[in-house]
């Protein structure tokens, strides 16, 4: 009964991992394809629910590990570190703040933006999502792609190393580039916005917007969405308010004021987020391709050259009537395993055959345990 319950829990977690990865990719796609705010809101809420469940899962597992005094085993051997990295940091830096921002109408986001540079906040939130890809390792662990435990362990180990290296290196580099605003698309974007604020300030002051200038601004910076004065009179608008409400969340927008505070200039931050989303999709594609290669190219190769010949030799040594030889591929004939297999084929099996010839009449499939008298 208990094992059935555990199996059910494991299956649920496995399903949730698949769903959360799909959700992460869809969230990036939603940003790239400019999906409506309503859909993105649903995705933010589901992302939070997933992270909350995984955080609870991690805390429960950690609690039992503490109770059973096997914390180190859980964290390192049972990959508890993945449970940790792909749950609490995400809840704290990604889905948690995103959900709070939704409920507070973006005011929390504004507070963060005031304390930190807005781009740094954006990056911190989006980069943390990369950690979700670590869960791929746990999916891989659950796929029974090889009969041999040894093959499973080796492939799982190499997959963990590869995926962790990619994710952590990207995480560290992205965090560092976010913190220090290393020259790049995002830094250019920020500089361009600041220049635009100065230009708008100089050109218009408090005057009404000249339609010709409006056209010039429109072409100069596609990220400039709206300019209003202190009376909330719209001086420039790329889209109507309905379009803004439908396709832009609060964190997609950056609100700046001119030096005198008479103008309110709203910029579009989506290009920066889309750039990060594209990076995430690229990383995920790399991870998926690597995993497919491990699963369908390396795993069979490992089986053919290591575990399969070992399994055949083991069967031949354990079972009296098992006399199949190991098939030795020509190109691997000098591998240690196949050198051993040749000895098995050429010496052990003929010897066993002669041995069995003399003793065949003592072998039976029946055992005393089978008979109940």
């Amino acid at each position: 009964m208990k094992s059935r319950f555990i199996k059910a829990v494991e299956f649920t977690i496995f399903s949730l991992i698949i769903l959360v990865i799909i959700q992460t990719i869809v969230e990036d796609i939603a940003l790239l394809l400019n999906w409506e705010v309503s859909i993105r809101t649903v995705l933010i809420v589901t992302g939070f629910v997933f992270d909350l469940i995984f955080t609870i899962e991690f805390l429960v597992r950690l609690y039992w590990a503490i109770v059973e005094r096997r914390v180190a085993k859980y964290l390192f051997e049972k990959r508890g570190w993945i449970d940790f990295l792909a749950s609490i940091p995400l809840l704290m830096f990604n889905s948690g703040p995103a959900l709070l921002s939704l409920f507070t109408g973006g005011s929390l986001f504004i507070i963060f933006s005031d304390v930190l540079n807005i781009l740094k906040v954006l990056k911190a939130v989006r980069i943390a999502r990369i950690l979700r890809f670590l869960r791929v390792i746990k999916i891989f662990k659950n796929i029974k792609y090889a009969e041999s435990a040894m093959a499973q362990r080796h492939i799982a180990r190499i997959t963990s190393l590869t995926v962790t290296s990619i994710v952590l290196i990207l995480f560290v580099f992205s965090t560092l580039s976010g913190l220090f605003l290393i020259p790049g698309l995002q830094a250019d974007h920020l500089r361009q916005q600041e220049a635009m604020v100065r230009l708008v300030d100089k050109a218009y002051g408090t005057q009404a917007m000249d339609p010709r200038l409006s056209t010039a601004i429109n072409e100069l910076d596609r990220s400039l969405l709206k300019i209003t004065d202190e009376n909330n009179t719209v001086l420039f608008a790329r889209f109507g308010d309905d379009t803004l409400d439908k396709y832009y969340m609060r964190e997609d927008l950056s609100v700046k004021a001119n030096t005198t505070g008479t103008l309110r200039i709203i910029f579009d931050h989506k290009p920066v987020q889309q750039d990060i989303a594209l990076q995430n999709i690229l990383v995920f594609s790399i991870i998926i391709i690597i995993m497919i290669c491990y699963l369908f190219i390396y795993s069979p190769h490992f089986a053919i050259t290591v575990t399969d010949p070992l399994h055949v030799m083991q069967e031949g040594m354990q079972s009296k009537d098992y006399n199949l030889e190991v098939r030795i591929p020509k190109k691997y004939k000098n591998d240690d395993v196949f050198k051993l297999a040749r000895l098995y084929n050429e010496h052990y099996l003929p010897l066993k055959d002669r041995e069995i010839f003399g003793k065949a009449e003592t072998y039976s499939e029946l055992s005393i345990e089978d008979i109940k008298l």
Partner: protein
Amino acid sequence: MDNEPTIGAQFVLRLLENPALASFSPLQKELHIINFLKVNINQLYPTLSSAGYFPGKTKDQIFSMVYESLKQIINKSLFPHLKKIITENIDFSFISSLTGSNGLKNAMSEQVLGFLQKLLQKSTARLNFLGPLTALDLAISDKYIDESFQRRSYLHFELTKVQKLSLTQEETKNLIKLSLLLKTSVNLLAVGGDVNSQEVRAAAVQNQFADKVLGALESQLDLIPPEALKSALHSNISFLESPDVEATARVAAIFAARCSNFRQFTKIDRGADTPDKSWFNIARRNYKFYGFDSKMLDEFYKTAAENGW
């Protein structure tokens, strides 16, 4: 006292119902049960000598009674099976081509069946019949002879030029089948029914002994020509000691041995070679031990490798 055969039969039936034996042929089941009894008789004896079974009997007596019941039960399925093989799988018309005279096919098959039913009362004959019977069931010789007639290499040369058989491909296959069927007739002169006896095993027979058996055999199977009887008897002779032994006898010896410990692989493990290829390769290395024709084994090995058998 009178119900001992019934108790023996009931005990045997319970053993036969064991799922571990489900995939085996009747004779294989018999062998497994005999081996089981031999190995475990000491542990079974307290129960089997109790009031519900065979009180007051010694181990040997119990063993003999159980074995007798086992034989009777197995014979009920073995003999109809044998009849089917003899009447449906072997076409005796090849004997006309062999001798040049017309024989009565039905009479021949009935004579062979009657002879085997008598011969298989002997324990050693039953034990040694396992390989030939499995080979006949699987028709293993058919596919290899078909291949050899296509290849026209060593085996074909041995059959047609050395043994000088003027038989068609199908007739040759039937001669080999009959050789397999009568291979165990070498046990004709074996005394008694001691199941522990190992007096006649593959390639353990001398030429002189085979000739002695041939004399006795000819009198019992007078409708079968001596060429066929020799082929059957000589399949028990080592090729290394008698290089002039018939090619059909050498083939029968190899296929009977191939099937004596035959294991049906429902699924071949990844990384393993195919069953026939593996067996022939092992046999190539042990050919001196078994007295097989190594060139014939080489040909069968190549055939198995090329066909994925």
